[in-house]
């Protein structure tokens, strides 16, 4: 199931969320708070946890078509020793996620062989046009749509096809995750 989340670290780091226990207690489990506090870079670790939770939330919401909720604490993150992949549990469901971290961004997406992710700093439409051109069609007439639960998809006018996609933007970055379905 697709889900992805991008964090612009230049923007995020100014928020110093890891220093605010009240914030942490609304978002994280006790175990996650311990890991953040004992980390060498607590702010980076907090945003890794946040992007994992957001990624799993998007996948979980799409999978069950459930209404939006602000319940990040219920998404429990588990890390492997290297911390580049992780697992997020919610209501008995597990989502494997992969983290890509650079000096100025964190990108997280669900791990699935058939998912293509695309990130960039151009405007959202241009990134999507480039993505579609390389994977589906040169068509430029499409709409981003959201269903009644706010779950996004992309409607390709000429192909009369709806493809699901996960969208994330933060600061200067935009990221998409799209399942690769060959027509």
């Amino acid at each position, binding site marked *: 199931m697709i889900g992805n989340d991008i964090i612009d670290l230049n923007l995020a780091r100014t928020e110093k969320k890891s220093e605010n226990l*009240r*914030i942490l207690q*609304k*978002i994280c489990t006790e175990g996650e708070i311990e890991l953040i506090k004992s980390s060498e870079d607590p702010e980076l670790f907090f945003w890794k946890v946040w992007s994992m939770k*957001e990624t799993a939330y998007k996948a979980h919401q799409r999978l069950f078509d459930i209404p*939006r*909720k*602000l*319940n990040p*604490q219920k998404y429990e993150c588990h890390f492997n020793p290297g911390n580049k992949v992780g697992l997020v549990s919610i209501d008995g469901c597990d989502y494997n996620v992969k983290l890509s971290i650079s000096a100025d961004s964190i990108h997280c997406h669900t791990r699935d062989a058939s998912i293509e992710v695309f990130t960039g700093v151009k405007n959202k439409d241009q990134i999507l046009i480039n993505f579609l051109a390389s994977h589906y069609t040169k068509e430029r007439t499409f709409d981003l749509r959201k269903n009644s639960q706010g779950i996004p998809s992309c409607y390709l006018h000429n192909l009369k096809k709806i493809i699901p996609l996960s969208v994330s933007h933060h600061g200067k970055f935009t990221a998409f995750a799209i399942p690769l379905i060959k027509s």
Partner: protein
Amino acid sequence: MSEKEILTRLKKIVEPYVQSLEGLQNFKEETDFLNDLQINSANLVDVILDVEDEFNIEIDNDSMEGMLTVGDAKAIIQRKLPQG
């Protein structure tokens, strides 16, 4: 506290996080924090903390779950405020 006063204070709280001025000009109970005001979801948690401070209430995580619109927030604030 009157409904109008709650909404006025709420509007002031969300202002620094809003990315859609159009949504802010149209601030009403149906206004959706994420869709209409384009507040990012991490900042929505900041809004909740600011609401706790402004109204001197505690918003538990179960209440926070359903705080998606201005009307949701207003209802939670009214429920948590001491009566009278």
